[in-house]
Structure formats: structure tokens, C-alpha cells
């Protein structure tokens, strides 16, 4: 699922990272109407109109925690070890990354192919079910915030 971040002429973030589907193929799953982002993007590019007050953009940034940072480093070590053919050493780092950041899709699903697992297989769909049962943490948080912002102005 594509995510977007908007960066202005001064290299400042003006729209925080957000789930932005290209079309409505997975609308039942995401609950996101793809046209919203398209319309906002046109308004910004053509007219300089931003969907959020700049003061709110900083607040909506998903700042990684210390555990998030460590999880990314463990995954980086694991991916490196996998690339050099040391999968025995990579395995514990993949697992530690998942333990530290259990709802990080990039870490979880992105690691499956490196571990010889299917990113569309049972372990992935088990993960999705568990993630959904836990309130879908970490996903579309910004979008939810942006959508509530939109709904108040629509």
C-alpha cells in the first residue's frame, strides 16, 4: 500500500507520512477513498493549498521510539547477514526486530521473503488477523487524523 509524504521547496515536510492508495482496489481493507489524496495533491501543486496547518504537521509525525530504532538496526544487521549468506546468524536478529517492533509491517512482512517465507502466505495472514484484533496499531494513524480533520471541514 503506497505511503506518501509531501516535501516543500525548502525541504520541509508539509504533509506527514500517510497511507495513500493509488486507487480503490483495497478500499474495503483500508477504508480510504483514494480520491481524497488526489484532490489534496492537485490543490497543493496547482494552488499551494495545504490540507493541514503547518503547526499540526510536526505533531502528526510518527517519531520512532528507542525500541523502534533498535528494531530497525537489528533488521538491518539481519538483512546484511542474509545477503552475505549467514542465515544462521541473521535469524535471531530478525526475531529481535519483531519483538521490539511487533506492529511494524516493514519489519514483519518485509523480512518474510528474506527468511524464505511467503509474504502472501499463512504467517502473513495470521499476522494481519492478530494486528487487526489489536486495533490495527501503527497503520493509517496519520490518515485517521487527517480524515477526522477533513470530516470536520467537509
Amino acid at each position, binding site marked *: *500500500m*503506497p*505511503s*506518501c*509524504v*509531501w*516535501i*516543500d*521547496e*525548502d*525541504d*520541509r*515536510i*508539509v504533509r506527514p*507520512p500517510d497511507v*495513500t492508495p493509488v486507487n480503490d482496489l483495497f478500499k474495503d481493507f483500508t477504508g480510504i477513498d483514494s480520491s481524497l489524496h488526489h484532490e489534496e*495533491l492537485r490543490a*497543493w*501543486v496547482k494552488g499551494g493549498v495545504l490540507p493541514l496547518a*503547518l503547526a499540526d*504537521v*510536526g*505533531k502528526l*509525525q*510518527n*517519531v*520512532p*521510539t*528507542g525500541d523502534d*530504532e*533498535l528494531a*530497525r*538496526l*537489528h533488521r*538491518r*544487521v539481519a538483512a*546484511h*547477514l542474509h545477503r552475505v549468506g*549467514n542465515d544462521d*546468524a541473521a535469524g535471531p*536478529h530478525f526475531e529481535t526486530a519483531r519483538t521490539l517492533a511487533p506492529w511494524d509491517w*516493514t519489519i514483519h*512482512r*518485509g523480512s518474510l*521473503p528474506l527468511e524464505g517465507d511467503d*509474504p*502472501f502466505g499463512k504467517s502473513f495472514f495470521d499476522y494481519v488477523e492478530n494486528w487487526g484484533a489489536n486495533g490495527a496499531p501503527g497503520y493509517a494513524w496519520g490518515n485517521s487524523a487527517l480524515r477526522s480533520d477533513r470530516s470536520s471541514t467537509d
Partner: protein
Amino acid sequence: MKMTILNGERATTVDSDSGSSIGVADLLNATGWQLKAEGLCQGDVCVPVRDRNELVVDDAVDLAAFAKALRRPVVIDAGAGVAALGESTAEVGDKLHNRIAPDFTLADINGQEMTMSKIGRKKKVLVVWSSW
């Protein structure tokens, strides 16, 4: 033994006796920092080192002490000969709260490297996805 240091977008392989430390002479190439009388320095910026004996042992820089001095997270697998250095969580948070987009360099679809800051004064939309 050989040790690979993963730092930002770079991977540098150097000699290491312990798997958790690297030679003082290799520090600049592997991390962009060097040890001076003032402390650990990167360009004109220097960070004082409180315990130099913890940082440098037998002319080798202990990577855990190095990361601690710079308040950066690190993961070291001495047995496998690899270490990954992260960014300071506080610095990352400050940048994001202040809406500063971190610069990056990636290969484009033709394999040519592209750096965001070289795009110039244009609006930029960064789209991230995976093909799985």
C-alpha cells in the same frame, strides 16, 4: 577478523581484533567521525568524551562506547562481525517535529543515483511502497 560497519547508507568492512571494536585509523572511514584531543569530531563539530579509557583500548575504538558517547543506538554482533549504527532518537524526533525532511540518495529506475537535496526548490512527493 573482518567487521562490517553499517552506518546510514554506507557499509564499510575493516579489520577488527574483537568483533566489537575497530582501529582508531579506521574510525573516520567507517563512521565519518574521528578521534581528536577535543573528543569525537565530525568536521567542525566535536563531542567531548568523558571516559577515553572506555572508548579506546589498545588503539582500538570500542563501538558500544562510541555509540554511547554520541547517544546513538547500536547493534553489534561480534560473532558474525557486523555492527549497525543508528541515529540519535532525540535528533530524529527534533527533525521530525520541526518538519525537516532528511536528505537521502537512492538509485533511480535507470540505476543513476539521485539525491533529494539536489532536486532544488520544487515541491516533492515521496511515494513509498513495496512490490513484495
